[in-house]
């Protein structure tokens, strides 16, 4: 049953990705930037998905610490969400950090600006890479607890990032719910929203697969430990 649902979800994702790509390619060119603005259909949705997944990772870390003593099996499932969220989040954040300078070079004439929003996105990426490093380095049973604590520390940085979004700089201010003059024309907004949905579905699909893989690895490790005890 689970596999059928996942297959169905994958099929919907594939349809959405094709639709999103077609809409992104057929949307009219923008007045100021011409065709180059189309990277917004990948840059912004990736950023949204990355932030969402970092939040999921933090939730997983909190859940692991909460259930660690009462319900070890459930705690392990939460830990799976923590590692899946961090890993897939880092991948999406990498996409943001690659597409950003490409767009910036064409639109601003510079690859990178050390303004608040770019800097803090890079910081988040560094924090979660360090989280993944800790998971590699820290051996033994306390690894999950240590990394859950670091995950919470990293998650706390997200609101700091959000606040610094509102400090003015090189990067454009909030497009939605910002000052006067913010917002998008409907002919661009529609493909933009479809692309957000498509990338969100794609991200969730990868996240679920990564979580299942982590559960399988945990089960394999537990089996190995049991065999070693019985041998």
């Amino acid at each position, binding site marked *: 049953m689970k596999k059928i649902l996942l297959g169905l979800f994958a099929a919907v994702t594939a349809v959405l990705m094709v639709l999103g790509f077609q809409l992104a390619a057929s949307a009219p060119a923008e007045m100021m930037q011409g065709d180059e603005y189309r990277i917004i259909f990948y840059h912004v949705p990736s950023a949204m998905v990355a932030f969402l997944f970092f939040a999921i990772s933090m939730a997983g870390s909190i859940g692991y610490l909460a259930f660690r003593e009462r319900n070890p099996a459930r705690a392990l499932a939460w830990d799976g969400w923590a590692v899946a969220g961090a890993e897939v989040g880092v991948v999406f954040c990498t996409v943001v950090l690659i597409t950003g300078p490409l767009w910036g070079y064409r639109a601003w004439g510079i690859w990178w600006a050390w303004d608040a929003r770019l800097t803090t996105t890079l910081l988040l990426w*560094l924090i979660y890479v*360090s989280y993944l490093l*800790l998971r590699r*380095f820290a051996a033994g049973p306390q*690894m999950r607890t240590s990394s859950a604590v670091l995950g*919470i*520390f990293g998650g706390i940085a997200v609101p*700091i990032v959000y606040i610094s979004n509102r*400090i003015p700089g090189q990067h454009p201010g909030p497009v939605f719910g910002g000052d006067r003059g913010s917002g998008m024309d409907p002919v661009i907004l529609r493909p933009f929203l479809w692309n957000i949905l498509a990338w969100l579905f794609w991200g969730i699909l990868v996240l679920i697969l990564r979580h299942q893989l982590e559960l399988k690895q945990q089960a394999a490790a537990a089996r190995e430990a049991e065999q070693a005890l019985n041998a």
Partner: protein
Amino acid sequence: MTSALWTHLFKDLRIEWRSREAINSMLFFALLVVVLFSLAFDPRGAFSRDIAGGVLCVATMFASVSALNQAWAREIRHQVLDAQRMAPTPGSQMFLAKVLANFLFVSIVQLILAPVFLVFYNLHILGNAWLLALVLPLGTWALVANGTFFAALSINSRNRELLLPLILFPIFMPALLAMVNSTTAIFTGEFDPAIWVKLLAAYDIIYTTVSLMLFDTILHAE
């Protein structure tokens, strides 16, 4: 503030008073960083004011890692940490005592380093110099509180001396940014450091609270 905290604090201070390991190594390391930067960038005039804040913060940061790595290593020998796990006092007291002790050590290093720094970089402070008395302790607290916490977190891992800077620096970077921006604002007098000082204070409050809450979890991670 209870007797357990004072006991831990006085013990750490007494050990440092007898050996002076942490302060001496930090002092020499920070001095090396300051000299290396002044050789690399040839600071003169207005340019020295622009980079001085950053050099001071980064020198403190690199130097304190060497001391923070040693902060818990002392407790591992002879299973002292296991004994402290069984002690009927909350681990947060021990943590707070370690943070206070290391905060004192790093502050002493900064105080000794300050005149050297002013000479090497030919500094004339153009902003409110007294604000440094607020910014530097706030930044040092951010560094030492997180550093002590992460040193305890990485104590059971392989290559813990390598791991500490790898996990500490990314988390510390928002505070470093605020610290560098406010010290640069004070040195150059070109912009108002208020927003960065507030950010630094907020960072200190948030991360110290979380560290105190989660320290027992780290200490008793089996």
